[in-house]
């Protein structure tokens, strides 16, 4: 194992070669906010919440997809990064229809919690208020496109852990949306196994169990660590 030494927020940090800045930081108790990243899934750098400043780099880099390098100097909490994180969160709220008060995930939402943690008390941008659909065709689950932030956690867990690859992303830019199979109602999907993994990893109220009322949709993320440990280490522990 080759060890790389770098500096994060002034602290010398040792990391394995090939590790990401996010992994190295977390191993040393340094908190970098994330949203699309989820332990146990591949990292895609979609949301940019984990932006860090690396000395010599012309722009901030996503910590979840940037590998450590010898002598690298990383800053995870600067005024510029805080401003960008706030702006990213505000843009996410402005882009979809996120009405926390009437959401099934109110109080259990990663987006809502991050906004509070980053001190976001208002959105300076005009709300787009797009006309988006709700897909309740599945027997057990609902997809509310109004709450979707396109983090692709559902796409990745379905492909990488369940192996079904029911979900994909169609469209471009602000018109992007998550689709089942060949853009058909979720309930008519031939590949969906109704396992519910996508629902449990979804950071917001975009995917939820039928019959849940306001604030009732808690997400169980611990199953992911259980499955990956069981598969990779053959240890069936909770």
């Amino acid at each position, binding site marked *: 194992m080759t060890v790389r030494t770098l500096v994060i927020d002034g602290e010398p940090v040792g990391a394995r070669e090939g590790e990401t800045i996010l992994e190295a930081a977390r191993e040393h108790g340094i908190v970098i906010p994330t949203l699309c990243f989820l332990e146990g899934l591949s990292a895609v750098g979609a949301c940019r919440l984990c932006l860090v400043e690396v000395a010599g780099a012309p722009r901030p880099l996503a910590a979840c997809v940037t590998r450590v390098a010898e002598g690298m100097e990383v800053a995870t909490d600067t005024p510029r990064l805080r401003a960008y994180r706030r702006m990213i969160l505000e843009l996410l709220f402005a882009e979809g229809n996120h*009405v*926390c008060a009437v959401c099934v995930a109110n109080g259990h939402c990663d987006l809502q919690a991050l906004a509070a943690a980053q*001190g976001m*008390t*208002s959105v300076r941008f005009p*709300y787009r208020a797009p006309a988006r659909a709700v897909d309740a065709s599945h027997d057990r689950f609902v997809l509310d496109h109004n709450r979707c932030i396109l983090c692709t956690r559902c796409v990745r867990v379905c492909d990488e852990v369940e192996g079904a690859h029911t979900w994909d992303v169609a469209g471009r830019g602000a018109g992007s949306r998550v689709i089942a199979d060949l853009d058909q109602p979720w309930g008519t999907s031939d590949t969906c196994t109704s396992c519910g993994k996508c629902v449990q990893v979804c950071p917001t109220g975009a995917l939820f169990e039928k019959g849940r009322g306001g604030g009732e949709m808690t997400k169980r993320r611990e199953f992911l660590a259980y499955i990956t440990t069981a598969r990779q280490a053959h240890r069936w522990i909770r």
Partner: protein
Amino acid sequence: MADLPSSPGLPAGSDAPAARGERLRLATVWLGGCSGCHMSFLDLDERLLALAPRIDLVYSPLADIKTFPARVDVALVEGAVATSDHLELIYTVRARTRVLVAFGDCAVTGNVTAMRNPIGPAAVLQRAYVETASAGAGPPDDVLVPKLLARVVPVHHVVPVDVWLPGCPPSADVIYAVLTDLLAGRPPATGGLRFG
């Protein structure tokens, strides 16, 4: 606190109304909201008695005062800007108020009131006054009922806001903390506040 914009109208420390021995001229305003924030304000319960000697409630739906007065120190504005009446009132409130507080999620984000935006006001009126109304009903007369704006917007998208107080509704504890800070001439601490 660094996240809050400066409040030029907010007198600090020794200049605070309380320090000058004056009562705070408080207004509460009800735009497009459900009055839940006002109910939360009433949930201050016995703390209202502690506030009462330090405050003059100069305008409020709770006090039935018809016109918004001049020289208001603090205005708690509940609700989003949804109608022509709201628009007119919020300009008056801003012009006559030193510290404007966006009071609750509708004022801060548009919230439930703004859920009509994806479909527009015409569809809302059709549903409320035609499809679900008894025979003979029709869309309301704009003379009697304020005209719905094309889009519902949060207060700060229309006039500058000094303090944000999100929550649906904000808890009585949070409201009390903000009011006591404003009485003391301090910019209110807003850490830990969240929507919903």
